[in-house]
């Protein structure tokens, strides 16, 4: 029943809210990532870009986008993701990802950090960052 409820909730958000896109630094050669790549990156399983540079994850904690991203891309609730990362931290597997409070902060960080990756509202895309296609 819980699963049904969450699905219902998810579809509600899916219908109402604006969609998100993944963004990286303009210098980053990556143009597209698979769904699995995205998931691995944001769950800390893939920590390096193709050119061996470390990936810096930026969590856009803008409520709506964050929720949509975690639920659709990572199949987790924001709370679950938080616990997930705390566990990684606790077991010494890595540091907590960087968290920013909105699209602007996210764009600003990604725009200035070569190895960063984040997600923003589709509408908020501008020249500071480069969009990465996902499939």
């Amino acid at each position, binding site marked *: 029943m819980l699963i049904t409820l969450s699905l219902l909730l998810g579809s509600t958000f899916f219908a109402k809210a604006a969609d998100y896109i993944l963004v990286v630094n303009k210098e980053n050669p990556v143009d597209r990532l698979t769904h699995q790549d995205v998931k691995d990156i944001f769950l800390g399983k893939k920590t390096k870009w193709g050119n061996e540079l470390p990936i810096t994850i930026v969590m856009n904690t803008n409520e709506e986008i964050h929720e949509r991203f975690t639920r659709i891309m990572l199949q987790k609730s924001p709370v679950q993701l938080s*616990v997930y990362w*705390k566990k990684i931290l*606790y*077991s010494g597997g890595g540091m907590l990802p960087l968290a920013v409070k909105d699209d602007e902060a996210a764009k600003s960080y990604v725009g200035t950090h070569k190895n960063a990756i984040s997600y923003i509202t589709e509408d908020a895309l501008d020249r500071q960052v480069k969009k990465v296609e996902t499939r």
Partner: protein
Amino acid sequence: MSDGGSIRSRIWRCVLVALIGYFVATMASFYLNMSQYDRLSKLVQVHFPQATLGNDILYTFKKQTERYEEAFLTGESELASQTDGLSADLSSMLDALLGAIKNSPHPQVSPAYVQKLRDEYRDYAHIASNVYAHVSEVESSLDLQKEIAQLGRSQRHLLAGFTDLDKRLNTFLISEIEENKTKSLKSTIFLGTLFVLVLLTVTLIIDRVAHRLLITPLAKLQENVHKFSRTQDAIRPEQASARDEIGRLAKAFWEMTQNLKVTTVSKKYVDNIIKNMTGGLVVVSPSGTIQTVNQVTLTMFGYTEDELLGKMAASLLTPENESLFSSSLINTLEKNGPMKDREITCLTKNGRRFPAHFSGSAMHHEAGSLEGIICVFNDITELKKAEHTLKKMAHYDALTGVANRNLFFEKLENSIRDAQREERIFALLYLDLDKFKAINDSMGHEIGDLVLKTVASRLQEVVRTGDMVARMGGDEFTIILNALHSAADAEILAKKITKTIAAPFAANGFVCTLGVSIGISLFPKDGSHTEILVNKADYAMYLAKAAGRNTFCRFTEEHLDNYLANSQQRDHEL
């Protein structure tokens, strides 16, 4: 009687051997069980607590990290501070383990390793108690995050260390248990083998001892008894073997056999006597059958033993003697006692008769009933022959072979008796050779003897069957003429005799002629008494000699007066 040699003490020695074997086996078993006990004790007191401690440490550490995690995730700083309390427990456990390992003679984990882990843990516990007290501020502080990540790595390292420690302790415990298992199995096999060996050894020893002490002496004794029963002779037991009961029994048996030899007559002995008897022994049953015979009997009668046994004893005798073995014999023997040297005639298998002396005596059972008759036959053929020779010597003249004086008088009596009964007459001729003394003196005794032999044989030729020639001694002969019809017959024969004697004969190269003077007396005319008949014939012979020799003279009535006068004179002279 030394106890050392008795069977009882030897059996006790066997039991002692068995007990020693049992004791050795028990001691070995005791020793092995004790070492097993020691190992198990060590396992329980040393290895097992260490393994448990290792396990507890791991468990407690896991519990602590879980609680810290929970506190971290939930932000419950209170839970975190509660969890700090486990650090002291874990620390003391580590101390205890370290102490135990240090005291352990063969530590399976180096104390340095445990010490390092303990020190690492102490650092970890110290940092953890500081870090987790501020868990609620984790998102805001990067330093805190760094510390937590550091702590997480340290925690992972410790977990690996404790797991390894636990594993090593447990592995050691298991290997110890395995080792004990192997040792137990080895002990069991060793003990089993030992018990079997002891059992075998003891069995073997007891078997040997029993064989030496009981079986062999008993077998020897048995053999000796058999030997004695077969041959009436026993082997003297060795002096040394008389130390135990069986030895003494063997000795006693031997002594008994020696006593028996002295006090009893063996069958062999009796058989020997019977075999070597000169007489034929026959034991006859009361019913008259033959029960026992000896070799002499078999030889004497020409039978084999099988032929005789069971046969009627009467068949050994001639038909006229058969009645000897009648029931009356038993009565006679019972009444008069043994019969001795009764003369009988026996019959051999091939029908030959021979004279024998029979002796018989009744044989009784100890209870008194008649068992049989013991008969002894002695062949007296030779005795009879000797007797016959003796008889002949007594009745016949050794030189001439004709009857002698004794037989003459005997026969004369017979003739008188027969003639009286048959009412007939007979004559008595008294012969005296003429001039025999001269021949004897001039030509020697040998020729004299030859003359006498010639005369005797000529006289024998002349007389008829039923008549008898006798030599009275010297050159005097007598003839009894039994079958006479008249007195004239006697004179005819006398004349014939004078003729016959007068015929010349050769003696040692000489030719001799003899003469004979014959006196005749007649029965019953001249008397019915031997002496009278002889005297009258003698007298008549003198008359014949006086008449001119080589003639004969018959006694007649006319001679009676002179004869009587002559005989009275002779009596008087005597």
